[in-house]
């Protein structure tokens, strides 16, 4: 009888700890063992005023519980970042990254970061007085000397205690003395310290872009096949949590006030920004020499160029030429990263591979808006004469590629226009804003729903499964996203000729953009100035790769120049190839320097 009336209310009595509730005549709840009356009334269902009645009662019954939740658990900002990193790592694991990546690489990097920024694993924490370390943290945290984290984690992979660290890492910093005042304007305890100008300038603090930079470094260390461009593409496609990643925080980690300035994401960082961030982070962490990128690793230029050749539907035979250029430029061995050496910047593996392909194309087809079209006319003649001939025709490739590129660019524009940025649970910076923010959220949501009803289709773009490739080339036409027939089996017969024992490109010339005086400290990119003077086909190729990698065309251009410098510099002994950029020439003189280039061998 009473159980019906209490409606299954099963909280423990505050006085005696029993669960035995009864309802008094006035409708109030009381504990039958200690007769303690609590602030809960029986839910009166009034048939006349059903709506009002229930809302009143439920607001009373929720009163105490809500208050408890409002405060949540006290937590630190770095814990929040740890959660985000964990989710990002899990998303990467789901994509097929090797399982050691999370616990043995990213986790160790994170610990090193905490130690270097003196947030944990240190005897001299940055937030002195605000919190003290708990002595029973994970084994090596504070009993071992400070350097042990790094040496342990890097060298003895088998010894680490796996998944447990993800919980205890945060735990070791959460044993603070709770400060009631600070929780008024933010959910976390130390959000304020993240927002002081001095701290922000010090670069040591975590930020949302830095989570991606850390992931990138960890992927590089694990020699995984995900380049920085891929990582950004996955983030853009929502396959790796980044925008509104805080929504996955556990219930008791409440986020509001100043926290929103730290965790709110309204932009996805650019390639160059992230690259810079990763480099500074690597220096900050004082990482040792990265594992060498050998031929069996997908990040090696040899394999990466093969991947991009497939992506842009160029024939496989071109890969031989790419490899020859790579050899000449001496890029086969020195492809790793040593943060502590100032002359060894973090390489752009993906852009470098694109540059190699562009140079190979330039070598074979010259790309001066004339030669490549003559060569493709020759190829089509050859194909006509010889019905079995399967010569690569640049014009045909260009047409197919251009169509695919236009479609893809339009698709990308459309996805940008429809991208949803705003979270389900809105953030507000101050209590005053709360009602306004919530109201705006509600109105936006309702408007969205009503327009969705009109359009009759879901708002979010149909999310495709993560893929390393933007284009689909194949034989069968039936697929939905199909960009054209594959050309990878075609030969370069018409653009190559046999000379002695080796193959030579039938195009005898190679050009190089005008050389110019350049102060590497001050000027950064000259692409905007020279773009108008470059052959259109070359610019189109730069644009193609800049679209594929999501970088600026200027970035690809600079990388091509860099690789050309090494490539041509190495063959300086040849009397005709003298295009070393060390010579400085007046800006206006020759528009384009023609240098004859014969490929030795």
């Amino acid at each position, binding site marked *: 009888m009473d159980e019906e009336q209490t409606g299954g209310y099963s909280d423990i009595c505050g006085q005696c700890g029993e669960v035995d509730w009864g309802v008094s005549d006035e409708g109030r709840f009381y504990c039958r063992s200690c007769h303690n009356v609590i602030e809960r009334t029986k839910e009166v269902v009034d048939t006349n005023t059903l709506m009002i009645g229930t809302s009143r009662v439920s607001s009373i019954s929720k009163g105490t519980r809500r208050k408890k939740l409002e405060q949540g658990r006290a937590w630190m900002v770095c814990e929040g970042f740890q959660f985000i990193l964990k989710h990002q790592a899990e998303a990467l694991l789901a994509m097929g990254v090797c399982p050691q990546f999370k616990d043995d690489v990213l986790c160790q990097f994170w610990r090193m970061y905490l130690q270097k920024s003196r947030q944990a694993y240190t005897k001299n924490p940055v937030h002195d007085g605000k919190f003290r370390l708990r002595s029973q943290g994970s084994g090596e945290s504070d009993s071992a000397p400070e350097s042990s984290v790094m040496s342990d984690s890097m060298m003895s992979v088998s010894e680490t205690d796996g998944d447990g660290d993800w919980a205890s890492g945060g735990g070791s910093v959460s044993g603070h003395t709770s400060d009631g005042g600070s929780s008024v304007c933010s959910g976390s305890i130390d959000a304020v310290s993240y927002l002081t100008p001095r701290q922000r300038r010090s670069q040591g603090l975590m930020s949302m872009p830095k989570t991606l930079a850390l992931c990138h470094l960890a992927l590089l260390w694990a020699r995984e096949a995900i380049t920085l461009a891929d990582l950004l593409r996955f983030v853009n496609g929502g396959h790796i949590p980044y925008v509104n990643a805080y929504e996955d925080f556990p219930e008791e980690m409440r986020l509001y006030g100043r926290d929103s300035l730290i965790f*709110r994401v*309204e*932009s*996805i960082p*650019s390639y*160059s920004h992230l690259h810079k961030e990763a480099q500074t982070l690597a220096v900050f962490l004082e990482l040792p020499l990265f594992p060498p990128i050998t031929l069996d690793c997908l990040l090696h230029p040899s394999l990466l160029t093969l991947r991009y050749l497939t992506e842009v539907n160029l024939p496989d035979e071109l890969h031989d030429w790419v490899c020859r250029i790579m050899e000449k430029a001496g890029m086969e061995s020195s492809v790793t990263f040593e943060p502590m050496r100032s002359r060894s910047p973090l390489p752009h593996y993906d852009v470098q591979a694109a540059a190699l392909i562009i140079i190979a194309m330039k070598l074979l087809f010259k790309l001066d808006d004339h030669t490549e079209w003559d060569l493709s006319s020759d190829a089509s003649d050859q194909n006509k004469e010889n019905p079995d001939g399967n010569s690569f025709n640049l014009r045909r490739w260009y047409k197919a590629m251009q169509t695919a590129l236009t479609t893809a660019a339009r698709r990308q*524009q*459309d996805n*940008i*226009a*429809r*991208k*949803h*940025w*705003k979270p389900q649970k*809105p953030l507000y*910076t101050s209590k005053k804003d709360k009602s306004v*923010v919530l*109201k*705006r*959220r509600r*109105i*936006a*949501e*309702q*408007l*969205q*729903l*009503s*327009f*969705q*009803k*009109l*359009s*009759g*289709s879901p*708002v979010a773009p149909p999310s495709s499964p993560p893929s390393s490739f933007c284009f689909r080339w194949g034989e069968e036409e039936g697929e939905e996203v199909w960009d054209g027939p594959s050309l990878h089996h075609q030969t370069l017969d018409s653009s190559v000729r046999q000379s002695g024992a080796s193959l030579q490109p039938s195009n005898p010339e190679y050009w190089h953009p005008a050389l110019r005086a350049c102060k590497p400290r001050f*000027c*950064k*990119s000259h*692409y*905007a*100035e020279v*773009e*108008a003077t470059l052959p259109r086909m070359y610019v189109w190729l730069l644009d193609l790769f800049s679209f594929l990698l999501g970088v*600026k065309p*200027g*970035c690809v251009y600079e990388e091509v120049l860099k690789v050309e410098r090494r490539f041509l510099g190495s063959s300086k002994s040849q009397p005709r190839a003298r295009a070393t950029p060390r010579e400085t020439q007046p800006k206006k003189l020759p528009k384009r320097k023609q240098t004859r280039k014969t490929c030795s061998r």
Partner: protein
Amino acid sequence: MDDLESELRMAGEEQGENESSDDDESINRKRIKKPNLPLAPPLFKETTREIGFHKTTRNCLQHIREVLLHHRWQDAAEYMASYSQTLEDTAANMPQLYAEIIWRIGTEILHHHPDSKLEDYNSFYERVKHSGVKHYLKVCLEHSFHLLVNGQFEDAKRQLSIAESWRYGKLSAGQSQRIRLIQAYSGFLDYFIWCDKKATASSTDEYDAAVNQEMHSYFRQSSVNLKEIMKLPGVWDPFVLSYIDMLEFYNDHEGAVKVLYDYAYDNSFPPNPNAHVYLYRYMKKHNHPLKKLLKVLKILHTLVPSHELMPEYCSLLVQSEKEGDLQKALGVVLDLLDYSSWRSNLDVWNHLMNIIKRLKMKKQWLKTFAVEMGYRKDWWLAIHFSTFQARKDSAENRELLEVKSFVVRAFSPCYTSIYCGKAARKGVTAKAQKAKRNPKQLRNIRRLRRESGQQSQD
């Protein structure tokens, strides 16, 4: 031109120095490719520090504009669904602007979308109203217009009364004006409801005191609001008409005439021909003396000499026995004929013919005529009695041809030969066309034509 160009470049470069090189590059590229068209400056520009969210909204707005121009309402609604997130922009410096964009584009889509229903409108307006306080009154008014157009008077009235009771901050000038308009429209809606009641009351045929009472209360509510708005200078045609209709129903003729007088003759109001038309029609309906009617029409004539009431004015002038009114009528007719829309109107020419006939009975009719012709002397005949005009009139309206022939004969023999001679010949050719199939007749007609040619040479 060159100076401007270099100045622009200077500004761009100064900006570029503060930004990173990548950004500078994009600016330069823009500058090279930008076409030199006189376009309005874009509302949202691509800036160097644009965050991803703003990029999305900017792109989205662009897409919406494109699909709107192509009338792809379905797609537009789809993009609008994702555009609504702009309302949540935290870095917004112009949240009102976003709300307004959503309001305007959203209504446009709703108006054209094939599946939009009244509920969609209602819910949309409700949401837009609450997205920004600045537009609250305007949106309320628009909402009630929409309901009004769809015949939902009660709902429209409710919207307006909600708007009337709404207060926010200090009453700004624009706000108080809008409030007045809202009150006027609520009076207007009361009139509609009053009309409904009237129709039901008259259909039952029985005298129902309760219905009558209700009608009267609507009348009172409405008249208070309508009177209020008519005190302000402006063009209030629908309000005036509805108010007059009610006054007429309650037999308050003096009141009605006073309202119309005030509306027509208050100098602070913008000149409004309709005001005089309403006054004239009302007076005519209630048999006011001719003199008063003429007075009203005289003003209308000065305001709009080509008004459709002018032939009526003319006939009234002819009817009046007063000295000089005939001359006035002549002036009115000649004024009318100056407008191309009246040029081949049989009625007007008939008036002119009658006036000439009556004038001819007086002695100095040619002198009177010369006064009225005045500056028209040089071209009037040439424009109305050309050969082209004759051909046109004979093809379209034979009666008109005859009337005009009479008129021209009264003025000038020279133009008579041009107009009537050609017209006669044209008449012959018309016969020829009819008789084309019959060669015998054709021969006859050829002979006729030869003869008439000889005549004109003579």
